[in-house]
């Protein structure tokens, strides 16, 4: 699936939730169940320090697609990471670079991507794109 298709699928899923509680419970469950990153990659090098929660991101290239894994010490942040990974991972560097994150507004999670939120997510998205740019350079 393309990034756009995945985003639409997520918007569809979130439209079924009736209130914030259902939305958040879904993200919390996502955050709890998904093993997101191999422990060996939870290093200082891969850490993005938010003021509040920490985020780890690791990337590798497989068959010209970028595979992201990530984690956070806060579970809601982790849930959002799970959504971002679903969108961005296993895509070509070019598609990742060109993708936008407007869908986050549509699923009612905009506040988590505000720079003042200081949970590391804004920097995380930047980091995903940086990885994609680096891999794109390799491909060229």
């Amino acid at each position, binding site marked *: 699936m393309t990034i756009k298709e995945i985003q639409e699928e997520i918007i569809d899923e979130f439209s079924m939730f009736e209130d914030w509680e259902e939305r958040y419970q879904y993200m919390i469950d996502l955050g709890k169940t998904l093993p997101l990153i191999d422990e060996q990659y939870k290093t200082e090098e891969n850490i993005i320090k938010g003021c509040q*929660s920490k985020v780890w991101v690791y990337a590798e290239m497989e068959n010209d697609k970028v595979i992201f894994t990530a984690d956070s010490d806060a579970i809601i942040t982790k849930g959002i990471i799970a959504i971002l990974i679903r969108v961005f991972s296993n895509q070509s560097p070019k598609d990742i670079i060109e993708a936008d994150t407007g869908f986050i507004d549509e699923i009612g999670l905009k506040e988590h991507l505000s720079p003042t939120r200081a949970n590391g997510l804004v920097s995380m998205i930047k980091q995903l794109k940086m990885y994609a740019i680096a891999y794109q350079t390799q491909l060229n």
Partner: protein
Amino acid sequence: MLNIENIRKDFPIFSRKVNGKPLVYFDNAATSQTPTQVIDVIVDYYSNYNANIHRGVHSLSQEATDKYEQARLKIQKHFNAKHSHEIIMTSGTTHGINLVANGFSSFLKKGDEVLVSALEHHSNIVPWQMLCERSGTTLRVIPMNQDGELIMSEYDQLLSEKTKLVFVNHISNALGTINPIKYIIDKAHSFGAAVLVDGAQACPHLKPDLQQLDVDFYVASAHKMCGPTGVGMLYGKEEWLKKLPPYQGGGEMIAEVTFEKTTYADLPHKFEAGTPNICGGIAFGAAIDYLNHIGFDAIESYEHELLEYATEKLSEIDGLKIYGTSKHKTSVVSFNLEEIHPYDVGTILDKMGIAVRTGHHCAQPIMDYFKIPGTVRASFAFYNTKQEIDALVEGVKKAKAMLS
């Protein structure tokens, strides 16, 4: 006895909703809310006598200058400073600390020591680290115990003839501990050291008597005292302020300027370069009037009641741990739920219209001491109610249910 229902009517913000719920505002240690009595002063200033001060011969300027200087007198009286020129208007607590740290570096030499408490806000750590780097002075830390209290026997041991300066907050922003500053000041003085007390967290809750405390420097912010942001005060004993070199150069702080030499203005203007926050200063005075009208004795006893109620109710929640358990504390409850990140709890509470602070509260060394990433901090003011605390308790229970 405070009439909370009436007091709440003074604060327009309490009529609004957040995320569809009535606002429960428990982030008072970050900034307090503003009553109509202060908002009106701000509106009046810009509507009726907005002018630059201390220079103009025209009536508006005179009027604004009078009001601004009246505010300084109110601050002097409130804090019981000996002279009004010992009150320097600043942009806030951080500005005041930097002003002193910057000036003090010229008095320090290699081998001197400055003491800082383990309970400090970053704004009372970083400027002193910068000072120590510049002057080759050693920074030493007064440690704390598990209750979040400074250990006075350790403080006694740290003090020596080498100690030149001690800086400590009156009340810890992260834990709410009230520090024994009178003891700290007297003991430091017996070694000839000066003391700076960061009063940002104390001034909303109590009324310090600066002459009685015999403190050398004391700093505070208006926005934690029902006043506007961007304004605060530095108190310094006259003899210190005379000795300290100016912090910033500019207009207002000079007596005479030639390209060869500038002579500085007298106190307090020597430290007040440029156009100050005129409206903010006047509104700061109005905020002090407002708090005194409510009365600090009443504020202290009511807030203590809120603290005890919240501590009791929150403690009943399984797996909730409170950080900062000193017997001497203000209305701050810093806590965590077992195995749950404070960010997650804060996020769920926000969805329920409850504003708390989460994170390290700009006091990372305290969090490192407890080996936690941060806490959820609920801080209460005299306009909060027990019903609001009940809402917080319900919110925390819900967060626990969702996140466990």
